[in-house]
């Protein structure tokens, strides 16, 4: 692995211990070029350091990960975000994805899996944790209301199969083997689901996420 295709990563998290823990765990193909601990320092560090991938904490002082996404992506920056959080709340998960993050993993993830996820996001693919896949299946399953845009508002059978396998704990490679398709095709399906998740106007999606807490 030479220096040219090292992935430059900025870690944004308000817990110093966690930042150093992640730094130590990441694989050799990742280069951590900086750290930030709140919204302000994150936005200026992204502008100054131009990382490939930002590891973004969801809950932070000053508006949290969603505020960083809004300000950075709002200015047309090409940087990619991978959300990393301890939270299991559907509204947090769906919130950062709809805010523009290309993936969501929980902080219990192993160093090797996190390294894979960062590389995947750097290549422009999406990263779904089993829980996120479950949320998406759940959110898109409740389709009683007529959809505005059928292309964006529902999942294809294949996408559903891929999401189910992710929820069952399968890695992309295992999914490809199971469905007799290439890893690249699996990635395409996941990216397509991510796009639907971000662009769908189905207001149930957000409502579902908030309502889930109140049941």
């Amino acid at each position, binding site marked *: 692995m030479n220096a040219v295709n090292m992935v430059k990563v900025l870690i944004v998290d308000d817990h110093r211990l966690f930042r150093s823990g992640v730094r130590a765990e990441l694989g050799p193909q990742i280069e951590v070029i900086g750290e930030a601990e709140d919204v302000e320092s994150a936005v200026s560090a992204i502008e100054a350091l131009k990382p490939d991938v930002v590891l973004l904490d969801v809950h932070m002082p000053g508006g949290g990960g969603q505020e960083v996404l809004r300000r950075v992506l709002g200015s047309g920056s090409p940087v990619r975000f991978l959300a990393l959080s301890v939270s299991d*709340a559907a509204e947090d998960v769906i919130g950062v994805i709809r805010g523009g993050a290309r993936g969501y993993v929980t902080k219990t993830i192993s160093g090797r899996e996190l390294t894979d996820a960062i590389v995947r996001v750097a290549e422009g693919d999406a990263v779904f944790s*089993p829980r996120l896949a479950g949320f998406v299946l759940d959110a898109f*399953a409740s389709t009683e209301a007529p959809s505005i845009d059928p292309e964006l508002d529902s999942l294809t059978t294949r996408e559903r199969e891929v999401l189910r396998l992710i929820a069952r704990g*399968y890695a992309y490679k295992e999914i490809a083997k199971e469905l007799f398709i290439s890893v690249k095709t699996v990635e395409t399906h996941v990216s397509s689901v991510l796009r639907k998740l971000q662009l769908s106007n189905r207001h149930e999606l957000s409502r579902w996420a908030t309502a889930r807490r109140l*049941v």
Partner: protein
Amino acid sequence: MSETPTIPEAYPRLVRPQRGRLVAGVAQGAAAQLKLDPVVLRLAFVLLTILDGLGLLAYAALWMFTPQEQSEGEPPARDWGQIAAYAVLGTALTAFGWVTGASTGGIGTWSIALGGIGTLILWQQADPGRRQRWMTDAVRQVRRSWIRTGIGLLLVVAGGAGFLAAQGKLAEARPGLIFTAVVVGGLALIAAPWLAGLWKELQKERRERIRQEERAEMAAHVHDSVLHTLTLIQRNAQDPFEVTRLARSQERELRNWLYQPKADADATMAAAVRRAAAEIEDEHGVPIEIVCVGDCDLDDRLRAMLQAVRQSMVNAAKYSEATVISVYAEVEAGEVTVFVRDRGKGFNMDDVPDDRMGIRQSIIGRMERHGGSARVKTEPGEGTEVMLTMKREQQ
């Protein structure tokens, strides 16, 4: 003046403050002395003035005998709107009394004036909680029966008008009615800011109380669970397995409390799977990641399925040597599917002796007896996945 130390007086002296006064500050000062709202005393003065100018006399006397409060700087401006409102109210009441002859009525008028002042003082003295109860009771009653109230009011007005018309007194009564309207308007004008303030204060208190209750619940929860676990962890610091188990179990409990919809583990599928996994996790110390999509009520078939799910999780925890177990449960309209997967060492199905109860009886046999199916996918070195499917009972 500022150099001399102020000697606290034995009892507070009646003074006339400049801030917030309307005429001379008499009512304001007296209100402070009696711990009442100035509005009450102002209304009392207005009411007493109508009775042969008694209020005016009392006001003038107090004005003369009370000193003005010492204050620095420009005297603050008066609220002319309120003065006008009191003046209008006084004029209207006088006119009303004059037209109806009530002001010369002796005892009867006094009882009305005293009753009015008394009510105001009672209202003022009541604590906010009680006032809120009065207010909400009244509002609720009005809300509950607004149709009845509306019809009743209509009938009273129509009846009164009809009676006056029949007696040929409608024209005569008109000025009295107009003055009544003016009095009510004046009262509303005076009371409006005060009532609005009161309402705002009540809302604030209510919010504060709710917040405090939430904080208390949070504190109780943290105390009962998190602090307790932290103590246990310190006590078991030399036992890494136990520390991990405690931390994991506390994390799970806190997560469920924070993020999971409250559900009854005896009643719904998703909650039951979560609880079973929690128990096995505690017992065997292997983390179990659960993803549930959809949910439904438990029935006999699903209870049987739950036993098979539990056995699959126990097998994975005990024999697979995997570091984590993934469980995925999906409830669809027609069937329920559960996958239990590990990336452990796996095994060869043919090598499992027939008398081994775990897989053949507790999982596959149990599912088939209840009309479901079970498939085990495994190979040495490839991990194991148990797939359980059960048709849902049609309601």
